[in-house]
């Protein structure tokens, strides 16, 4: 449960999106000592598309959804396509929401994006932040955007370090979350029927 999970929507190999995800993960893990798992959406692209038509995940996608749902902290990185996150990135979180609408509720998330120029850096706050707010994640105040030029300029390591520090603090602060006690069966949380019925009679 104390895994730090990176979701990278980079498409090329090697990809600067993945590179940014790795940097952020290493910086965060330096604080928390959490194990890091990286999920490359490229490898799941076909299963994600199939989920959209069939309504259920294939084995590799199910495994990734489980990992993200159980993550103590999440680092999400997307390239900017057409002024927003990539379609693959969004589809993964669409599928996650359909799988379990509470999958990210209360999960600390660090948002990050890459692009050719700095002109799209507000994509973090105009696109990614609302998406994760909708999923009821706790989004770290600092998002990290890396344009191509940033890889040869000053400032990126500091932003990575600041964001990682925030994610580490959120992860530590929220790790004591205790789910409400309910009878459990078959891995589901059950609201006793009498309670369901009573709620309608109020």
């Amino acid at each position, binding site marked *: 449960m104390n895994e730090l999970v990176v979701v990278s929507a980079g498409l090329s190999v090697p990809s600067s999106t993945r590179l940014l995800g790795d940097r952020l993960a290493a910086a965060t893990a330096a604080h928390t000592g959490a194990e890091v798992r990286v999920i490359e959406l490229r490898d799941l692209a076909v299963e994600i598309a*199939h989920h959209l*038509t*069939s309504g*259920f995940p*294939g084995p590799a996608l199910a495994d990734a959804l489980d990992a993200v749902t159980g993550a103590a902290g999440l680092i999400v990185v997307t390239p900017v396509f057409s002024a927003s996150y990539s379609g693959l990135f969004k589809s993964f979180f669409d599928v996650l929401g359909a799988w379990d609408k509470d999958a990210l509720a209360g999960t600390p998330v660090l948002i990050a994006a890459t692009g050719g120029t700095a002109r799209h850096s507000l994509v973090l706050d105009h696109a990614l932040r609302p998406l994760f707010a909708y999923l009821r994640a706790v989004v770290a105040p600092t998002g990290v955007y890396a344009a191509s030029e940033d890889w040869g300029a000053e400032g990126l390591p500091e932003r990575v370090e600041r964001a990682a520090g925030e994610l580490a603090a959120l992860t530590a602060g929220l790790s004591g979350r205790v789910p409400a006690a309910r009878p459990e069966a*078959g891995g*589901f949380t059950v609201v*006793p029927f009498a309670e*369901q*019925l009573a709620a309608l009679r109020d």
Partner: protein
Amino acid sequence: MQFGIFSVGDVTPDPTTGRTPTERERVKAMVAIALKAEEVGLDVFATGEHHNPPFVPSSPTTLLGYIAARTERLVLSTSTTLITTNDPVKIAEDFAMLQQLADGRVDLMTGRGNTGPVYPWFGKDIRQGINLAIENYALLHRLWREDVVDWEGKFRTPLQGFTSTPRPLDGVPPFVWHGSIRSPEIAEQAAYYGDGFFHNNIFWPADHTKRMIELYRNRWAHYGHGAPEQAIVGLGGQVFMRKNSQDAVREFRPYFDNAPVYGHGPSLEDFTAQTPLTVGSPQQVIDKTLSFREYAGDYQRQLFLMDHAGLPLKTVLEQLDLLGEQVVPVLREEFAKNRPANVPDAPTHASLLAARAKGDEKKSDEKAEVSTV
């Protein structure tokens, strides 16, 4: 154990010819398929309920009443009856009427439906889906068990001194299965009432089905209806068969690839590996169906989806011949092996009537004992 078929009632072009049946042809085909089910020795025919094209069965009790008149043994059921958007009073009346006409060969499966706009079309709020299912069924349950009902709820006008007619045949309400694919609340509801739970697993991996059934069985025991293994479980299945499995795959592939539900998605091979769909020889169908028991436990009802995706009637009738002649007899034999004696069969009108008579006897014995003391 009961074996049968369930139909969605879709009007879909045959992808190999491009021809779309008329609604009349499709309605009549559903009847022909039901009659065939009885002829080949199946136990159950269930129809879906839909209120939008390309589906024809909007009026299940009309269809089932017609089939009832032309069959003798077949149990008539639904897959599903919309407990959310139908008036529970009308469900109580329609199915009691059908039950009277069909001499008790009737049960039904309640469901919430999966077509969003049906809620507003019938004046309901989709956000209340679960609550509608809970309240409407609570009323339906009373209407069949109490001769005069006073009732007030959130979603329907109140009832004062209402009697739903006709009363259930012999005072025994039709057995109810609660169908749900993903909602633990519905498994909980089925368990609470001691009703059946049907998991339409046909588009789902085994692991998910297993968890839903486990939930239902455990909660059934929690509510004191018996041991978990005595709960009443139904499962879906989906098959296409030919004597040689290669022929089955070749013939079914265009229907699979263009099917309204999963077409243009995963490959036939992936889908058969991950879901209950079997495309192959009768023996492969037997093996796959028997494997359901490994994760669902000993269960009571197995329904197969046979007529969809534009398969021509002639093909569907051939499939039913194979199902009835080569598959189901073997399944009956195999499922009966090692089946614990305490696992009940699916309730029928006769078994419910007998159980009630036994209960009455026990009660009057108790009374007699009390009076002699």
